[in-house]
């Protein structure tokens, strides 16, 4: 099942027409002045750190993924809940995908190159853009407007983004649906499990990192894979992780049992560091470890 899931994921990410150039969309003109009883009341236009003015500290999430700017619009109507369109432009499509993986609780493909639809909001990523369309309250009118704006924005972004190459290196067997996060700021290291409150594996703007969930919820283990610019950097990060996390690891004792009876292992392979946390059994960790080495 998981193999099927990952295949569908990659298929959906690649089935849109390819664009080789970066595309700037002008949402100020793409988003309508009016839709049914809704009227555009506030145009949103923020660049870089000016986003603090809009969402204060929440802006750091987008800044950590190389935010270029955000455009959008608020729609209001008499006795209608507000509808807000926010389009975040990131420096690369990989970063747009990364922000999307931060926000993802399920995996759908109704909009863009991956989306999530709920009663009162739709999220999707496409090209270099991460799009959020929300309403304050779900009503038939606001749901219709949210869907319309999602379709409109999706159509206005005609480019196609690439997903980070490191995602393709995740073993598909046992991968939880929608269960991986792409990032390159150490703050996001603890998205699924508390690993450390500091940069224990030297993640930075020059590294690609992915954290992935494997196995069922009641026997979950987590794979951290970090790709460094050079093998030396991977080796240094591996040494640091071993020293801080598992000094007892040796070539003859490469999978260890921790104090909470979970299993751990790690491996540096060329310019990549892989670590498996919270293994339910030694066999589970061994199996995933072997998959990584392939």
């Amino acid at each position, binding site marked *: 099942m998981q193999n099927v899931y990952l295949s569908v994921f990659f298929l959906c990410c690649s089935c849109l027409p390819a664009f080789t150039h970066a595309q700037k969309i002008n949402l100020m003109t793409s988003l309508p002045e009016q839709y049914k009883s809704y009227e555009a009341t506030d145009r949103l236009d923020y660049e870089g750190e000016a986003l*603090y003015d809009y969402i204060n*500290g929440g802006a750091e999430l987008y800044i950590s993924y190389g935010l270029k700017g955000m455009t959008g619009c608020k729609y209001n109507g008499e006795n209608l809940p507000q509808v807000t369109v926010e389009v975040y432009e990131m420096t690369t499509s990989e970063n747009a995908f990364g922000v999307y993986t931060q926000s993802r609780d399920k995996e759908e493909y109704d909009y863009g190159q991956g989306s999530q639809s709920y009663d009162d909001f739709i999220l999707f990523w496409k090209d270099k853009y991460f799009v*959020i369309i929300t309403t304050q309250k779900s009503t038939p009118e606001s749901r219709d407007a949210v869907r319309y704006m999602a379709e409109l924005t999706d159509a206005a972004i005609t480019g196609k983004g690439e997903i980070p190459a490191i995602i393709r290196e995740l073993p598909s067997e046992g991968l939880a649906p929608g269960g991986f996060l792409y990032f390159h700021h150490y703050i996001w290291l*603890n998205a*699924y499990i508390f690993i450390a*409150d*500091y940069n224990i594996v030297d993640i930075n703007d020059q590294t690609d990192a992915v954290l992935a969930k494997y196995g069922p*919820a009641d026997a979950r283990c987590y794979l951290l894979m970090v790709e460094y610019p050079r093998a030396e950097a991977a080796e240094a990060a591996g040494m640091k992780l071993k020293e801080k996390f*598992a000094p007892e690891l040796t070539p003859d004792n490469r999978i260890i049992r921790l104090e909470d009876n979970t299993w751990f292992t790690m491996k540096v392979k060329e310019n990549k560091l892989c670590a498996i946390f919270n293994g339910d059994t030694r066999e589970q960790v061994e199996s995933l470890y072997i998959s990584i080495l392939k």
Partner: protein
Amino acid sequence: MESISRRELLKRTVVMAAGSSLLLNRPITAWANEKEATAKVVLIRNQNLFAGGASPDPAICGQMLDEALCNLTGKKNAREAWASIVKPTDVVGIKTNAWNGLPTPPELDEILKTRVQSAGVKEENVSIDDRGVKTNPVFQRSTALINIRPMRTHAWAGVGTLLKNYIMFAEKPSDYHDDSCASLAELHDLPAVKGKTRLYVLVLFTPQFHHLTASTFYEEFSWKYNGLAIGFDPVAIDSVGLRIIEAKRKDYFKEERPLNPPAKHIALADTRYHMGTSDPAKIELVKIGWDEGSFV
């Protein structure tokens, strides 16, 4: 110790013989310092708070606040309790939180204002504000502050807290964003607020325990907890709120799902800034009222 890994926590857990899964959801415990000081936090809940509809019942809000304050101060009645918080000569700023998705309920802001006035403070000497605190004349000449805000998950600080609620007093709020807002406790040393806060009220009426994006409130990820946590130590109150949020996440997701990023600023307010205690063992938690699903 200010930085910690999962492995170090696991080793400490064994030493402390505590429940490992709970501890790992709450690394705050293992960071706490060794000082003896304790803090009292009063958590009050009322099952009927929303019985009348979507908004909290103002009468119940008032009762909850008064009862909790009497317990916190040890006073016999609300009049005495409020009189112990502010004097008639005080100029009082009520620092609320106006975040569009989950603001401080206006009912609570107004009740606080009424109670402050009932303690003898003149109407012109009380003001409720959030984003305008730096230019608000009452806040500028304030002698006392009351810090009130709802708790919710936050995309960069882990959770929005009483500690974080003073960020609008900063000249440049983004100066406090480094390392997932690790230095938020420093806000409480700003001249505009230092030594002025008389009461902290953490609103847990409908906390948000999870979010998908930074700018949106998710009703799906909030629940009617119907609670208020009050006290004089914001670190202790925030750490109680954090325990509730983390317990709710575990209950909802059915697996470990730590805050992303961790709310390290609460623990650091204790261990780095010595502003209060984040260690549950050193917090006297008094629970009043509805207990079902309290998580603490």
